[in-house]
């Protein structure tokens, strides 16, 4: 901060937290859009090897008939083409073919290695995405509360009424009903058994905890 907080006083709850709601949402969206887009589907280089996944082959055949050429191993005559030796006619060509096969093998190996690195990179992306989800879980209720709060009441929680009456259940008992508001939220009613008396030092902690649980439940919904 450029401004000294002691001089100007701290900013309000609304100003402090309100932008986070939108920002966390935007960051999540930026990640999720890509995670669910077709561009994020990994190119499968497994078909370069034997024993590939059938669905990959189907996709490959539909997209491009070269997928069928991978079945050459099952046709004798096709195999024979691969072993045709033209070196008697032209030895230089045989060398070149060997060179091609060697570089092809190297390229296939490096492509596979690159794919593994990409997968690690993808898992980092998934990590960040799950951290954003945690961030959302942990913090969204605060920023959402701030988002709905325009006023600058000095109380984060305001108690409107505290009443005691008989419960509606089959076995009548006395209950304490406390109506509270968290910042500018709608009134939240918390019902406590008579045993939790308002003289108990933990009375308001219990009320606030329950009110907050109710607020978070509603925000998630």
């Amino acid at each position, binding site marked *: 901060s450029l401004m000294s907080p002691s001089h100007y006083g701290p900013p309000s709850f609304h*100003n402090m937290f309100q932008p986070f709601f939108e920002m966390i949402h935007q960051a999540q969206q930026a990640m999720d*859009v890509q995670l669910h887009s077709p561009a994020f589907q990994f190119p499968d280089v497994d078909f370069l090897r034997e024993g590939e996944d059938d669905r990959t082959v189907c996709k490959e055949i539909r997209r491009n008939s*070269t997928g069928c050429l991978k079945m050459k191993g099952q046709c004798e005559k096709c195999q024979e083409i691969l072993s045709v030796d033209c070196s008697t006619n032209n030895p230089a060509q045989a060398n070149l073919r060997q060179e*091609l096969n060697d570089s092809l093998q190297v390229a296939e190996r490096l492509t596979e290695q690159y794919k593994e690195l990409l997968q690690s*990179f993808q898992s980092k992306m998934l990590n960040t995405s799950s951290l954003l989800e945690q961030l959302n879980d*942990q913090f969204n209720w605060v920023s959402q509360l701030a988002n709905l709060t325009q006023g600058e009441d000095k109380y984060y929680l*305001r108690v409107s009424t*505290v009443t005691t009456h008989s419960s509606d259940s089959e076995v009548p008992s006395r209950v304490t009903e406390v109506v509270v508001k*968290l910042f500018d939220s709608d009134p939240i009613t918390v019902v406590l058994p008579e045993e939790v008396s308002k003289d108990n030092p933990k009375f308001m902690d219990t009320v606030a905890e329950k009110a907050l649980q109710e607020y978070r439940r509603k925000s998630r919904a």
Partner: protein
Amino acid sequence: EQEVSDNELQELSTQGSRYINKEIQNAVQGVKHIKTLIEKTNAERKSLLNSLEEAKKKKEDALEDTRDSEMKLKAFPEVCNETMMALWEECKPCLKHTCMKFYARVCRSGSGLVGQQLEEFLNQSSPFYFWMNGDRIDSLLESDRQQSQVLDAMQDSFARASGIIDTLFQDRFFARELHDPHYFSPIGFPHKRPHFLYPKSRLVR
């Protein structure tokens, strides 16, 4: 039946506010922890990106070598033409039959269209393409294209998300210590916003 006085209500409100205040602080501490984890993941991602760049360079060099050899080989006269053509004519029906049988059994949908497409492809293909492992080269090039696309998409996504996350965490709020006693206190909470929080106001202009 109203049981408590206004003064008591105020006291209860203060106590409840303290609890909420504490919960907000807990949430913020949790966010700080997540912030550390995100930064750690980002650092790992950056180092991974360096490895990816190196691996990409090696892969592309190897692809370049493969394509070079392929081009040189293509420039040679097709010396085994006759043998190759004869084998190819026998290879084609077998390849088509094997492929269609597989497709009908495993892939099920759209066999007719795939059969027609395959027929055209085989008729247009040369046995030399086959002999030179052209299909493997094409697969590699296709993988290369798709891998670049995936990396671009991931980086783009990361860049946008990171930009937002950085802005979020660079906020003055996260740079300040949370045990500041005045910071969250509901008592003495300011009733007026400081003017610097109105960036578009005339005052600032």
